[in-house]
């Protein structure tokens, strides 16, 4: 059987949805019920939701095979490119992980400045020095206004006692 063009990646998506449903189902089977009796079992909703998800993902897969494919969301300002650009995608993703790994080790200012800089690089900014300086300044201002004026604590990290 020949698949419609571009259907493959969407079928992978549909099967991962099925897998998600399966994970919910298996997790629900494995949990032990409490000893006391309940009118409605806490397993009822997970069972229902996982079955619905698995059914729907099968229906979606059938639709895809029959040629009813997704219309990727449009963005007004540009023309979509045919193949995903995973290099740029990875730079954005790496910037997000940098925040996750650094926020408690190095503090908010360092973590957020690196994230900020990484995103400007991904979005094709040419003047790197300017972006780094501007980004860091912006982050310092955000840090000070949150910790001083709004009393929202953010980790100081290595700047503890200085800022």
């Amino acid at each position, binding site marked *: 059987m020949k698949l419609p063009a571009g259907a493959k990646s*969407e079928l992978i998506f549909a099967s991962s949805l099925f897998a*998600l449903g399966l994970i919910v189902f298996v997790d629900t089977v494995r949990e032990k019920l409490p000893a006391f009796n309940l009118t409605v079992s806490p397993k009822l909703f997970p069972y229902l939701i996982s079955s619905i998800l698995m059914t729907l993902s099968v229906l979606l897969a059938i639709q895809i095979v029959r040629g009813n494919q*997704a219309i990727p*969301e449009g963005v007004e300002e540009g023309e979509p490119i045919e193949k995903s650009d995973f290099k740029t995608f990875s730079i954005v993703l790496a910037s997000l992980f940098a*925040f996750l790994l650094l926020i408690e080790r190095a503090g908010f200012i360092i973590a957020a400045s690196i994230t900020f800089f990484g995103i400007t690089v991904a979005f094709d900014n040419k003047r790197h020095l300017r972006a780094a300086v501007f980004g860091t300044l912006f982050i310092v201002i955000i840090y000070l206004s949150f910790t001083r004026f709004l009393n929202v604590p953010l980790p100081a990290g290595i700047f503890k006692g200085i800022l």
Partner: protein
Amino acid sequence: MNNFESLIQGFVSALTFTNLAFGLLGTFLGTLVGVLPGIGPALAIALLLPITYTVSPSSALIMFAAIYYGAMYGGSTTSILLNTPGESGSVITALEGNKMARRGQAGAALATAAIGSFIAGTIATTILAFTAPSIADLAIKVGAADYVALMLVAFTTVSSLLGSSQIRGFISLTIGLVLGLVGADLQSGLSRLTFGNQAAVEGIETVPVIVSIFALGEALYIAARFKELGWNIIPMKGRALMSRQDWKRSWKPWIRGTFLGFPLGVIPAGGSEVPTFLSYSVEKKLSKHPEEFGKGAIEGVAGPEAANNANAAGALVPLLALGLPTSATAAVILVAFQTYQIQPGPTLFLTNGALIWTLIASLFIGNTLLLILNLPLVRVWVQLLKVPRPYLFAGIVTFAMLGAYALNASTFDVQVAIAIGILGFLFRRFGMPITPLILGLILGPNLELQFRRALQISGGDYSTLWATPLSKALYFVLILALFTPVVTRVLRKVRQRTH
């Protein structure tokens, strides 16, 4: 105390110097974020939530009302000058307003949008102030089984009316429900989908999910799929003013838009898409210049903008009276209330009456501040559209990460945020609507709670779920909403064949 006196009390507690200062700050920030391209009101509010975490409840409410209106106003500015609607309710504004701007009437388009939104917001908030308490009175009699039916109707309408594919809408809803399952079950203590992670026992926070699915998802999507982006900002000549002729052509659409938008906000009709489209077609039918529509007719901006704003206020009725959000924006507002320990619902007017009247008064004040501040400042906002794209995205993403972390000072929330960002990318790539997911995440746990309550009262008898007249009527609506798209599709096919 009657409603009017309560409202006056609300104004008294809202109109202090500190609160007004927070109101001004909220208007400013709301517009600032809302005007940024691609950011709709739901995301703008979610992004700005961390700011209100430590402010006192009444100041937070007024700031929040101001952010809300500011974000809506900012969104229409971007739609008119840049043609980038941040949400479905602004699509029509972008369509007609951008054409006006191209014809050199940007000022009039911005003015009719702002004044129309103000008038619609004021009328709609007045109706809200005098109907929500009585609806809440009625709603106290609504039983758990009726709530189950109500939520199922909201799920069905939002999943099946939004977007092009019913199956994709329902899958989005189901994934939201899965996210809502995570954590310890309140009644039995059974930990669901936590996989031994201690932080997950508390459940998944809604704020990082909403922010990430919009902001991080969009950043990843644009990074992967779009190149060579350029914006066409339309230069604004003159001031944001309307001529006598513009006023004459605008006032009726404002009023009609208000009365179309408000009731459609009260019932779960899938957000602001339907009322704005309806208002547009009504204005086109009634206009003396139907040929101008599609080329920049002022009625086509005035009506839908008023409808959009009245719709947003209408959505506050089920939100305040029943605790039931019917759009992404309303869902974010519900979350915001919960961060101030306020649980919307029928008992809200009894337990937290003073605070709710402060909120309603704040809505009036926020709306007025916006009109006073923003029409003269419109040039400042236009400058914001010139922020270079890399900086814009960097700022949004960093702020989203800050919001995710600051909520509980926990890296688990940041992990969730990144995972949801990737999910948001996949949703955009594969054409899945986002609103159903948000509703599923927020209402899922609530649905389970009411379901259990209903069955405990009936002693496990499932027929209690459709025993009352209200629930019967609601299930009828549900079936209609479920099958109308299918039936119309089949009919269309049959007609095509006969031709």
